[in-house]
Structure formats: C-alpha cells, structure tokens
C-alpha cells in the first residue's frame, strides 16, 4: 500500500511515469527475490507490480523466462499479506497464457477459493479459471458450481464472469451450470443478478426459442438490477431484429413497458432501443421520444447528453418525430456543456424549418470559438445537408461558412468547410458567385497547399464562365507572387484557362503568363511557356484540347513515358488530347519501343483511363458516414488488371490493345449448379467474352469447359479457349474470341450461349474423380452486345470547347419522341445507359421544376474516335421529346450513336 501511495505521489509531483524506463530483463531478474525466505511483502509487491506493468505494455516474454518467473511467483503463496496475494492472482492470470506448467497452482488456488478469506476467494476463482483448460475443467466443476451460488456477492460474481470466459472454449461444461446460474439470478445483489443473466443468455444464445422464453420469463417477474434490465432490453432488441418483427411483437411491449421503469438507466436503454429499431412507425416512436424529451431537461449533464445525442441520431431517420422536442432542444442551445449545445443545434438544424435557419445560425456563431474542431466538423456537416435541403438559404449559410473559414482551425476542419462550399457551388448555380468570392478570400491567407491548389483548380474551371471573369484573375495572380511552387503552378494553369476561354482576357493573360516564364521552379516555368505558346496560336481547337480539356493522365506518368520514347530516337509521337490511363500508356510505349517500326507512335492505341464510377456521386448524408461503403476506388485500375489477365492467355496475344472491359454480368442465377459471369472485352477489331465459371456441385468435376456462342449477323466466332478443369468451388475462366463485323455501322447483336463440358463424378469428401466422364451442356442466358460496349466514358470539363473542336463535319441530327418516359431524369438515365457516354458539366442533373433540359455527353468510340452528343430534351403531356445531335471524328461513329436510341 505504501508503495502504491508513494508511486501516486511521485506521479503527481514529477508528472512522469515511475515505470517508464523499465527493462524487461531486469524485472525478470528481480523476480528471483520471490524465492527468498522469509518473504518481504513490500519489496515483492513492488517487483510484481513492475512485472505486471511490463506484461501489460505488450512486451514479448519468452516461455522459459516466463516459466521461471511464474514458479518464483508461486512461492508467494506462503505470504499472508493481502495486497501481495491479490497482486499474485493478477500475475497468475496475466502469465497463464505465456508460461508453461501453470497447472501447478491449481490446488493452491482451489484451497483459496474454498477458504475463509473472502477477499481471496473471488480473485482465486478468476485466476483458477484462467489457468484451467477444458480437460482439467472437470476437476474444478464442483467448486465452480458451489461458488456460483455462494452467498458472498463478490465470489458469486467472480464465478459467473469466469464461467462466461470459460464458455468461449468449453461451452459443453458450462452448459451444465444452468441451474446454478438460474439460482444466482434470484440473488439480491444487483451485480450478481446482472452477471447471472449474462451467463444464462450466453449459454442459451444459440437456441432462439430458449432466449425468447428467457426474456418473457424475466420480463414478467421483476428483476432488481437495472443492469440486468438493460441487458434484457438488448437481448429483446436483438430478437426483434432477427425476427424482423415490428411493434406487434411481445418483445416490443416489454421494451415499451421499460420506459416506465424507475431507474433512469433502464428508461434510457429502452428509449434508445426503440429509436434504433428498423420497422417503427411514428406512433411507436412517440413514447420513446417523449422520454428523451424529459431527459433533456434533467439536471444531470450525462442524461442531457445521452438524450440529445440519441435525438440527433433519430433526426436522421425520423425528423418529424423529433420536432416535438424542438422547444427543449432550444433550451439546450445555451447549455454550459458545449458538447450538448452543439448536438442540440445540429439536431435542430436537421429538423428545423427554413425560417428557423437564420436564428440558429446566429445562435451557433456565438460559441463556435469555444468548441473543439471535432464538433465544428459536425456543425459543418449539418450545414452541408442544410444547403442541399434549402437551396434558397445559401446566402446565410455561405456567409457563415466564410466566417468559419476566417477563424482558426486545423486542416481537417478547413478541408470540410472548403468541400462544403465546393459542393454547394456545384449543386446550386445561384450560390456560385458568392462561394467563389469566399474561396478567393480564403486562399489569400491559406497555409494548406492542398486546399489552395484545389481551390485554384476550381477557379480555373468555374471562373471563366462567370459574368465577370476578370475579377478572379487578381486573386490568382497574387498566388503566383506569394506562394510556394506547387500553388504557383496551379495558379499558372488557372490563368491559362481564363485566357483560353475568354477572348477579351487573352492578351492580359498572356502578359501575366510571360512574367511567369522567369520563375525559379521548373514546373511553373514549363507550364507557363507551354500555355503562352498555345495561347499565342489563337486557335480555338488547340486551346480547347490542351488547356480547357487537357490530358487527364498524371503529368509525371506521361513525361516518363515520353522520355523513354525519345530515348529510343523515335520522335514521331502523335499525341492528341486523349484521356489515357497511365499504366496503359506505359505498356503501349514499351511495346512500341520493342518492335522496331517506322510508323509514328499513336496515342490512340493507348487504353483510356476509365472514368471512376463514383465521379458524380453525391456525398452521403453526414452522420451516416461509416455505414456507407467507400466509392469504387479500384475502378481505374480494374481495366488494367483485366488487360494483364488477358495478356497472360497466349491465344489472345495478337488481338491488340484492350479498349474497354464491361462490368461482370451474371448469366445464371447465383444459386444454380454452375454459376457463370460474363465480362465483355472490346478490342479495335475483336471482342473477347470472358466467362468466369464456378462449379457449385461438390460431387462433380468438370473438364474442358467452353461456352458455345451462336454468332449474330456479321459476327464471327474465331476461337474458343477452354478451361481445362473446374473442380468444386474453384472459379475458372474460359474465353470466346469473336471477330467484329466489317461493316462499321453494325455493332450490336444478341448471342445465345450454352455451357459445354465433360462431367466426371467424384467423391464429395476426397474430391477424387472417376476416370471416365460424359458430355453435358447447360443453357445460359443470352449475352447482348450494345453500343455502350464500344464506347469509353471520357469527362470533358469544358464541353463547348470540345464541341467546337470536333466541328460540324460529321454531324447528324434527329428528333425522337420517347413516349415511355414520364420524367426528364428517367429519360436522361436511359440515354446514358444506352450510349455509355459520360455526362459533362453536371448536365445529368435537372434543376427542379424545369420542363426542358440539355444533356451533354462525351466519350471515345472504339478505334479512338471522339464522340460527342448533345441531347435537347423537352417534357410535355405525351412524354419526352428529344433532339439528338451527334458529332464525331468519324462518320460511321455518328451514325451508330444516332441510331442507338431508336
């Protein structure tokens, strides 16, 4: 005791941890002191504490050293000193998994657990259970049963919790202790009752009927312990969730009745359970919410916090239910505890009406400076959802965000605000000017390079299209003078975009860029020189290709690839503004350098960068984060993986570079005997169908698996590459190579497919197949080749520039009546799906209440031809009317796309 006191004192005085510089080996050496007779409890206690500290710091102790220390420790059983003894029990528990022969202390512990000293009995039980394995459990079973029903609560609780731990490994033995646990549930001690219920539930956990009985039994006969009640509520909630039962279930009645319990803990648990249930109506929620409402005015801060936190969560799902509490939440806004106040305000923001927004924003701004960054982020997320909900309130919200930007704050906080502003600008065109102005102000004094470059990029994209682009240039050029190299480079690119887009600013931009040509940084200088030269040409298509819709490959990757080309003395690199994947480019260049060829290198042979699927994904509602999966990060690399996979098949080596791979398509039901997925790979003149097959029958092995395809008009099946063997549950791939029709306009078709194979029966257990098999086949669903398979999505940030660049040479125009569509959104979704093109400039979103809309789509057609589509849509009573204009660098491509919709 003295030792501990002194330690505490030292800690207070020195502030340092007395055990900070412990060495594992010295401590282990010191354990030899335990062997001395007679035992010095004070000294040994201190050493043992050090040993426990070392073990709990996660130090790895070897089995031999640990065993030696453990046996030294067993000598301490001589001592009667209570503190030393209890430390020793802890030591035994902690070392039970690392030392050998820990069984040696069994009898000694058994003696202690049945002994007179109550203080030793509980810890002895815990230590005993940790050293006992399943085979030895039989011998202590009798004592455990006695301990569970012991009248000393500490002993009983120790036995119950230890049994719970034991049942992880020896469920069968602990199952036999049900009767004792039953008896312990009737104990008067609240902790024993709770632990006993826990053990009972654990034993019966897998038997649903028994659990139901358990709950209904104890919900009728009153338990004393509020902890046990909370546990019972949790069990009941789980049952309701498993059964998918709504408020009709008797379990729900029980939970509801707990709302009237006298313990606050139970009431809160019940309310929380009801609120989190899935199938609840507003009527079911009402009593729970009113209980939480009561808690909101409780004098205890913990209760207020719990209530408002739960209400905050409910507000996501059932904002209407929470409106009843608005008055109480308003009172909490001024709470002295800032966490409570923040949660209250964000809850109100979620539930409040448009009119209350102004007042709440004013209120929250009074204490923004007092809360931590973490809660500030919560506030920003709430504002973000408000911006989406009430677009008309953008000016208030924007001003608020701007003032938040001016305040002190960490990177995460600032990033959240900038993201929020950017999202608002993109969603709401009206907010654009104000948002850009705030961001301009922010970069004047921004210490985060990442944020500054992000904002500069945004300014370059959005600024030129505002009514007064010139006012942004000052802000951007200031960056060139004041900032570090990365920001300067971003600023140069942004200025060039202004010059490329706005005729009247061209001259001034060129002057500004020329000044940057003397920059100290290579990257900045290079960019400036490049842009000045392009801009001086004064050709729209050039600036469109190189400045406005520049390459979307990483500059580094391209540079490296080009460098390797130049190294080989090949200077004919024909590079057009394509969106290429870096990996693909590198591979193509590599191949090119390997084959001595006189023809110029053509960028069109390089695979395109796949447009990430999550591109336009609207940010999930804040607060729900965590259960929303990450956006498909691998989208860009998926195709590179396929390309590698296909390149490994020797028969497919000469089909050229992979243009596009489709998403896997299921052509069987997933529960059938054979499960087949099809992936369509498009090459410039061929298509490869990859069939990923899985054999779900464990008594069969399939050999020589192929997929027989009936070729549609003009298509020709060239080759089938069988999968040699398909054992149970191991996926394998078979390929079918199809030559595309010579006629460039016939590109679609339907292919009926049949899976053909040789079956060999096998023993399900050993997997040993019979020698001879028989041929069999299995009909699959048809595989369709659509226009979308020939088109790769490409994002053109400035559609108009590309539209002019391609020119009206191969333009086709037609008007369609889409009578089956009833809304513009539906029509847009279908058009995108048919054509497989990328919507540009967020034109896939229709502003609310508009009856006409223009959709811009861009992509690359197989063979590397640009393809641009402008669809003017109008909604009237008979459906949607569409005027479709297609421009492309190849006449047949225009024809294919124009007819795709029909």
């Amino acid at each position: 005791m003295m030792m501990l006191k002194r330690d505490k004192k030292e800690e207070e005085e020195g502030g340092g941890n007395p055990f900070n510089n412990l060495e594992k080996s010295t401590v282990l050496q010191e354990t030899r002191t335990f062997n001395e007779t007679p035992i010095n409890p004070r000294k040994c206690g201190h050493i043992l504490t050090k040993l426990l500290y070392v073990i709990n710091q996660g130090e790895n102790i070897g089995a031999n050293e640990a065993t030696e220390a453990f046996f030294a420790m067993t000598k301490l059983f001589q001592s009667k000193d209570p503190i030393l003894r209890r430390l020793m029990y802890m030591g035994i528990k902690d070392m039970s998994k690392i030392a050998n022969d820990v069984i040696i202390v069994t009898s000694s512990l058994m003696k202690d657990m049945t002994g007179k000293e109550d203080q030793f009995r509980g810890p002895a039980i815990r230590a005993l259970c940790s050293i006992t394995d399943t085979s030895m459990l039989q011998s202590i079973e009798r004592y455990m049963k006695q301990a569970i029903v012991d009248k000393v609560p500490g002993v009983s609780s120790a036995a119950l919790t230890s049994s719970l731990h034991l049942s992880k490994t020896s469920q069968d033995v602990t199952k036999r202790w049900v009767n004792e646990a039953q008896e312990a549930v009737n104990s008067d001690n609240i902790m024993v009752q709770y632990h006993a219920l826990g053990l009972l539930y654990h034993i019966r956990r897998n038997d649903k009927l028994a659990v139901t009985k358990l709950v209904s039994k104890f919900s009728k006969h009153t338990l004393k312990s509020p902890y046990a009640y909370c546990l019972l509520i949790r069990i009941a909630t789980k049952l309701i969730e498993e059964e998918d039962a709504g408020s009709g279930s008797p379990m729900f009645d029980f939970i509801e009745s707990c709302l009237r319990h006298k313990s606050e803990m139970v009431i809160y648990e019940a309310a929380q359970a009801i609120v989190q249930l899935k199938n609840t109506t507003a009527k079911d929620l009402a009593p729970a919410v009113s209980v939480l409402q009561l808690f909101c005015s409780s004098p205890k801060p913990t209760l207020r916090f719990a209530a408002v936190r739960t209400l905050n969560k409910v507000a996501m799902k059932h904002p209407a239910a929470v409106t009843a509490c608005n008055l109480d939440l308003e009172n909490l806004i001024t709470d002295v505890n800032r966490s409570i106040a923040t949660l209250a305000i964000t809850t109100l923001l979620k539930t409040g009406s448009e009119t209350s927004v102004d007042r709440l924003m004013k209120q929250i701004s009074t204490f923004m400076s007092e809360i931590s960054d973490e809660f500030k982020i919560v506030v920003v997320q709430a504002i973000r959802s408000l911006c989406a909900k009430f677009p008309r309130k953008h000016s208030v919200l924007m001003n608020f965000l701007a003032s938040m930007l001016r305040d002190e704050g960490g990177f995460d906080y600032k990033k959240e605000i900038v993201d929020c502003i950017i999202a608002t600008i993109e969603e709401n065109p009206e907010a654009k000017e104000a948002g850009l102005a705030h961001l301009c102000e922010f970069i004047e004094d921004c210490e985060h390079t990442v944020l500054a470059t992000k904002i500069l990029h945004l300014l370059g994209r959005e600024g030129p299209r505002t009514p007064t682009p010139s006012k942004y240039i000052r802000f951007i050029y200031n960056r060139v003078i004041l900032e570090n190299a990365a920001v300067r480079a971003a600023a140069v690119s942004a200025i060039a975009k202004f010059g490329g887009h706005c005729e009247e600013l061209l001259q001034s931009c060129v002057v500004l860029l020329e000044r940057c040509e003397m920059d100290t940084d290579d990257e900045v200088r290079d960019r400036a020189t490049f842009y000045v030269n392009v801009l001086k040409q004064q050709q729209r298509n050039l600036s469109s290709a190189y400045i406005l819709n520049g390459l979307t490959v990483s500059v580094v990757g391209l540079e490296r690839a080009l460098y390797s080309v130049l190294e080989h003395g090949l200077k004919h690199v024909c590079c057009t503004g394509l969106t290429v994947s870096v990996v693909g480019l590198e591979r193509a260049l590599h191949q090119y350098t390997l084959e001595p060829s006189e023809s110029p290198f053509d960028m069109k042979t390089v695979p395109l960068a796949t447009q990430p699927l999550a591109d336009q994904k609207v940010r999930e509602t804040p607060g729900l984060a965590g259960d929303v999966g990450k956006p498909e990060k691998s989208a860009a690399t998926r195709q590179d993986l396929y390309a590698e996979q296909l390149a490994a098949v020797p028969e497919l080596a000469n089909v050229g570079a992979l243009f596009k791979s489709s998403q896997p398509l299921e052509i069987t039901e997933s529960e059938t005997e054979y499960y087949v997925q099809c992936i369509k790979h498009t090459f410039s003149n061929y298509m490869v169908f990859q069939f990923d097959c899985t054999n779900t029958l464990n008594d069969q092995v399939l050999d020589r698996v192929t997929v027989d395809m009936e070729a549609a008009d003009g298509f020709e099946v060239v080759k089938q590459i069988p999968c040699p063997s398909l054992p149970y549950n191991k996926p394998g791939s078979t390929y079918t190579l199809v030559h595309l029709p010579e006629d460039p306009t016939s590109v679609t078709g339907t292919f009926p497919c049949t899976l053909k194979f040789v079956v060999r029966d096998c023993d399900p257990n050993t997997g040993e197949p019979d020698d001879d098999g028989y041929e069999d086949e299995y009909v699959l669903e048809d595989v369709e080749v659509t226009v979308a398979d020939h088109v790769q999505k490409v994002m053109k940030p400035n559609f108009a520039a590309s539209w002019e660049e391609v020119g009206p040479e191969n333009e086709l125009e037609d008007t369609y009546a889409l009578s089956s569509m009833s809304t513009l959104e539906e029509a847009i979704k279908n058009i995108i799906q048919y054509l497989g093109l990328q919507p540009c400039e967020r034109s896939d979103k229709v502003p609310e209440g508009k009856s006409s809309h223009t959709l811009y789509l861009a992509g690359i057609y197989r063979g590397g031809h640009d393809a641009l589509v402008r669809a003017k849509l109008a909604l009237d009573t008979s459906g949607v009317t569409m005027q479709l204009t297609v421009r492309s660098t190849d006449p047949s491509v225009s024809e294919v796309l124009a007819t795709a919709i029909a």
Partner: protein
Amino acid sequence: MGFFDTLAQWLGVKKREVNVLVVGLDNSGKTTIINHFKPHDSKNHDIVPTVGFNVERFTSKALAFTAFDMSGQGRYRNLWEHYYRECHGVIFVIDSSDKLRMVVAKDELDLLLQHSDLKNRRIPILFFANKMDLRESVSSVKCSSLMGLDQIRDKPWHICASNAVTGEGLSEGVDWLTDQIKDLIESKKK
C-alpha cells in the same frame, strides 16, 4: 529481515521460519500428514489428490515450518525441482504397503538426490514409512533396504514408521527434522 524480527527470535518469542518440501509418490499420504499438523479447526476432512502443490504452515517445538506439499502424480513430479533450491529439509513419504511401486519411489529419490540444486547440500531428509497399520505393510528397516537408503552418505537421514490417519510416529520424525535443521543453521552461523 528487520531488527525487531531478529530480536524477537533471539528472545525466543518468534520462531525461526524454515521451508520443507514434502514429496513422494501419489497416494502415499503427503497431504494427510501435513493435515495432521494443522491446528484442529482448520483441518481438512476430505483429502483429494493434489494438483500442483499446496502451501501449509505448522510449528514444531522450535521452528515454524512452511511446507510445500507437492503433488505426487506422475505428470507433476518433474515440477518438484522448481522448489529444491529454497528448501531447508525434505520429507519423503513412502507408502510402505505398496511394495510394487517401491522401485518407482527409489527412482524418484535417486533423481532427487542427483539434482544439481540438492547434490552438494547437506540437507536432512526425513522418510516416513507411512501406512504402517495396514497388514501388508513392510517394516521401516525393510523399507530402508528396499529404497537403498544406506547408500546415502552425504546427507543426514532418518526413517520412521508412521500412520498419518492417527498421527502415530509423525511427531517423532518431525522432532528429528527440527533438530537437524537447527544444527544446520547453527553450523552455518559459525
């Protein structure tokens, strides 16, 4: 050991504490012998096979004994050696009615005597030829010849016939052990 402890011992108020190790084959009666020395109210009525070891305390006329009552079961016998180093004396219990396993006991004894922690120490060994009341039991003389005790030359030893259930012969043996340990401690001091 503090000053007061030394003083108390010198005055004879507090007895000197020594450790003894109680070993022997399983079912030879080790725990029962120790149980006999315990004060009446803490006596255990049902003796079960020991797993590992038990620490018990008892006093004789001049010493306070801390007895490490080891388990005699085959798989735990190799754990005895962890306690050799600190003991001042060994009590080896033999089941004198179990002639068959007398050789096993002898083997264990030889291993004990050869152990590096005991080999060069002159620690006293007390043998109890236990269960002398049984009809098939052999005499202590026969027992000592079966165990080859006459081969032990470097350690003081003593054998006495005992009956742990009634306590017959036990105090005689412990008195001998007390004298030996006392002598040993005296001679060390000189």
